[in-house]
């Protein structure tokens, strides 16, 4: 009886600890001002303290305005470069760190994937439906060496077929074995595409990632990335 009570108290304390953690969601895609307001309020309710917002040129002014307005949620400017050409990526990287807080690359070829791992200006390499095949063992080792991070957008989980899901599980196994830095973000386009941290823990542990690694991917790894870079 007492043990049951203690266990329930432990669960409650764990939930409270979770609510006090600094949670990061580094990929949110917004094009509308009203959607951004709704999204920030729901993200705040879910316990997020920082959001990486990718928005169009008109939206960047709105972002600055909102970062002053919402003080509980930190807003970070983010850009995603999608390319299969190495030269094109190099050209678009010039002076990019002055404008954006987070730079992510979605590689569509092995050359771009290797460049993204080696280049110090690039923070994240996205591993989604199209780019998952380019994230192999040597890429993971490179990322570990040059302190980059792999980002898995969770909205992809809703649309992956069996073959891609098995590929994702294999990559997750590699990431766990080599202890490569991992970041889990929502990739949300609307407030209802956001993920509660407990959702992420539940679904990722089912896919084979250890719970400690999932919490690391939501808290410490993105924090280190934002602070150090």
């Amino acid at each position, binding site marked *: 009886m007492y043990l049951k*009570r203690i266990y*329930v108290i432990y*669960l409650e304390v764990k*939930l409270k600890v979770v609510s006090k953690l600094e949670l990061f969601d580094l990929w949110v895609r917004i094009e509308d001002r009203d959607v951004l307001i709704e999204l920030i309020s*729901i993200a705040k309710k879910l316990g997020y303290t920082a959001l990486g917002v990718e928005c169009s040129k008109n939206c960047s002014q709105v972002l600055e305005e909102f970062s002053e307005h919402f003080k509980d949620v930190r807003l970070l400017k983010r850009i995603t470069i999608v390319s299969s050409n190495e030269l094109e990526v190099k050209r678009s990287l010039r002076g990019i760190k002055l404008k954006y807080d987070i730079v992510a690359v979605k590689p569509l070829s092995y050359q771009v994937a290797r460049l993204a791992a080696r280049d110090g200006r690039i923070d994240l390499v996205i591993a989604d439906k199209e780019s998952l095949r380019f994230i192999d063992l040597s890429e993971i080792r490179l990322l570990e060496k040059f302190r980059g991070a792999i980002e898995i957008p969770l909205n992809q989980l*809703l649309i992956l077929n069996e073959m891609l899901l098995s590929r994702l599980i294999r990559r997750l196994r590699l990431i766990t074995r080599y202890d490569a830095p991992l970041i889990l973000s929502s990739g949300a386009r609307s407030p209802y595409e956001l993920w509660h941290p407990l959702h992420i*823990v539940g*679904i*990722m542990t089912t896919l084979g990632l250890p719970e*400690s690694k999932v919490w690391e991917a939501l808290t410490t790894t993105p924090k280190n990335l934002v602070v150090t870079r």
Partner: protein
Amino acid sequence: MIHLETLVLLLLFLSIIIGGIALVIAIRSMKYINLILSTLVKYPRIFERISRRIEAKKKIKKRYIVFEVLGQGNINMNELDNEIRKNIVALLGRKGIVEVGYKLVFYDESKCKGIIRSNNRAYKFLIGILGLVRKIGNKNILIVPISIHGTLKKAYEKIGE
């Protein structure tokens, strides 16, 4: 006859000696305790493996998840139940529903809050499944877990707050 003062002094002396010995043992064992703690902190997977083994031996007990539905418009209890069941079946099969011990116990349509029953082995997985439920009909929804309880009474109390 032993004098009372000598007896007190003797007891004091003895307690100091025993205290000293206990302190030495504590300091020596601290090294090992530190070693164990640092290993657990350094390699959390060891801790997880141990806890997983303990969890596997544990008796199956009921857990009640209190949740809130954020979304556009009101949602019927049956619609919600069907959608969650569909997602469990898609990921685990029909056997999965039995293993997870899923049941939608209660759903208050006015408050948009409800209770789901599960067990202590699979409640985390079930919370993960709730994250996959994003649409009911044409309405966008998000199911947010609020708390986990050991008894239904406590879960109802949480909804009543």
